[in-house]
């Protein structure tokens, strides 16, 4: 379970380019829930995910995962609990390492790394079996440098890597955005399968309203560093893309009014 309470984060405070990226952002995700996150550019989605993963320190607020306070933990300290797939396919893998070395790295996510060989025969078989489920022929290319793979292939491997080791939270930040439509659909399908298979608590940022509603059990909308919409269950089932777009426009309008009031 993720519990983020009252997160605040300001970039470049006290300068003309000051940006309040998170303004009292709170969100609770029960164990096993798959949440999709939407919001306009600059709403604070990536900042929120970065705060949860530890890449950005919050100015105030509290981040707990399964009751453990993570607020002050560095990225590598949280990695035991948090798995990630980045938007940029190049970011989630080490291009200089082979496919199996990348997977071996992920297999030990958050654990002590000792002096035994990273890729052992038994592990190699496990990786081969995992890769063959992708149907991309990668099971025969274990010792190829991962830099030789296409973006879609790398993203698919990244997803497998995220699930090699149990995690309490999976973070996906527009992880299909850099892919062509067919590959994106494939990676999304794979995501749904892996999340279901491992019953992962998941937060997925997307710009596609369709995706946001089709996938997962709950959808939240961020605006100006806060949750402005949170739908699940029956209410969500009744929603359509244009409903969502309407709400999108509405909250945006309201928020602008809010600010106008404040400024006035």
């Amino acid at each position, binding site marked *: 379970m993720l519990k983020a309470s009252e997160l605040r984060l300001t970039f470049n405070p006290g300068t003309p380019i000051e940006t309040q990226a998170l303004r009292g952002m709170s969100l609770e995700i029960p164990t096993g829930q798959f949440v999709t996150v939407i919001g306009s550019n600059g709403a604070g989605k990536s900042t929120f995910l970065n705060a949860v*993963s530890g*890449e950005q320190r919050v100015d105030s607020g509290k981040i707990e995962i399964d009751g453990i306070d993570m607020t002050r933990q*560095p*990225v*590598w*300290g949280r*990695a*035991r609990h948090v798995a*990630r797939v980045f938007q940029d396919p190049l*970011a*989630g*893998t*080490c*291009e*200089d*390492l082979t496919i199996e*070395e990348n997977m*071996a*790295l*992920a297999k*030990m*996510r*958050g*654990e002590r*790394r*000792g*002096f*035994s*060989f*990273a*890729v052992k025969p038994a592990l190699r078989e496990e990786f081969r079996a995992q890769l063959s489920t992708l149907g991309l022929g990668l099971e025969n290319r274990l010792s190829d*440098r991962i830099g030789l793979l296409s973006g879609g292939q790398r993203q698919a491997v990244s997803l497998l890597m995220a699930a090699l080791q149990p995690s309490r939270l999976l973070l996906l930040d527009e992880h299909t955005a850099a892919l062509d439509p067919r590959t994106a659909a494939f990676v999304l399908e794979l995501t749904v399968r892996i999340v279901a298979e491992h019953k992962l608590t998941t937060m997925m940022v997307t710009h596609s309203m369709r995706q946001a509603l089709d996938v997962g059990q709950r959808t939240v909308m961020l605006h100006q560093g806060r949750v402005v919409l949170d739908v699940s269950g029956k209410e969500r089932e009744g929603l359509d893309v244009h409903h969502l777009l309407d709400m999108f426009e509405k909250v945006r309008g309201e928020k602008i009014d809010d600010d106008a009031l404040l400024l006035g």
Partner: protein
Amino acid sequence: MSLYTLLGALEIGLIFSLVALGVYISFRLLRFPDLTVDGSFPLGGAVAATMIAAGHDPFTATIAATLAGAVAGLLTGWLNVSLKIMDLLASILMMIALYSINLRIMGKPNVPLITEPTVFNLLQPEALADYVFRPLLLVLVVLAVKLALDAYFSTQSGLAIRATGSNARMARAQGVNTGMAILAGMALSNALVGLAGALFAQTQGGADISMGVGTIVIGLAAVIVGESLLPSRKLYLATIAVILGAIVYRFFIALALNSDFIGLQAQDLNLVTAVLVTVALVVPRLRAHWSGKKGA
């Protein structure tokens, strides 16, 4: 070239292949431009020569020199990781600090080893001449280091260091403490350089405060020459390439200095190095250019 100069070149080439392996770890695996080596090479020499001159066992002295190198690398890493000083600058600071430290250790600008025992003359069998035995022993040492490095960098811990250099953000997301990985890699790199310095002092008749000048350039030259001789991203091939690079480089230098018709002298060494590195940098690009044309 006589057999004697040939073996001499091989000997120095092998010693510098340890430097080159160290430079490969910092520059290539960690992507940390580390100039500490100009200080940790003479540091190794200073520690070994001073200890041997004071009557310590040469093996103990060599190990101590290696550890001293590791500490120097650790400090450079610490300046960068904990004090957030830019990598190149951190290593320059360490390099100049080591100049004073090395003088302190030696107590004078040079410590000769003429009659003292060394790891070489202690192990040398009666039947072999010293100039034959030294390169022979060094081949074994370098081979052992190479195999140990290949093995280490395919362990979980070694993989974490390579991942840190290749994609630190990803490494952290996988739970790698990248700060510690940098410290470990820098310590390992400079330990090898310290070892090289200790062996150099024991083959060249002592340590000298200026023995470190240009070490980094020679190390880099070896890495670059090696990579153009044997381009490969596979680690066990890359380490061979780097070792070959160091030896080939040394042969070229010996050749250039020994060919009367070119008329080069010892003081032209740095110029020869610069030309060699330039050629080694340009050749792969020309090769790519030509093969590109063929393909078109």
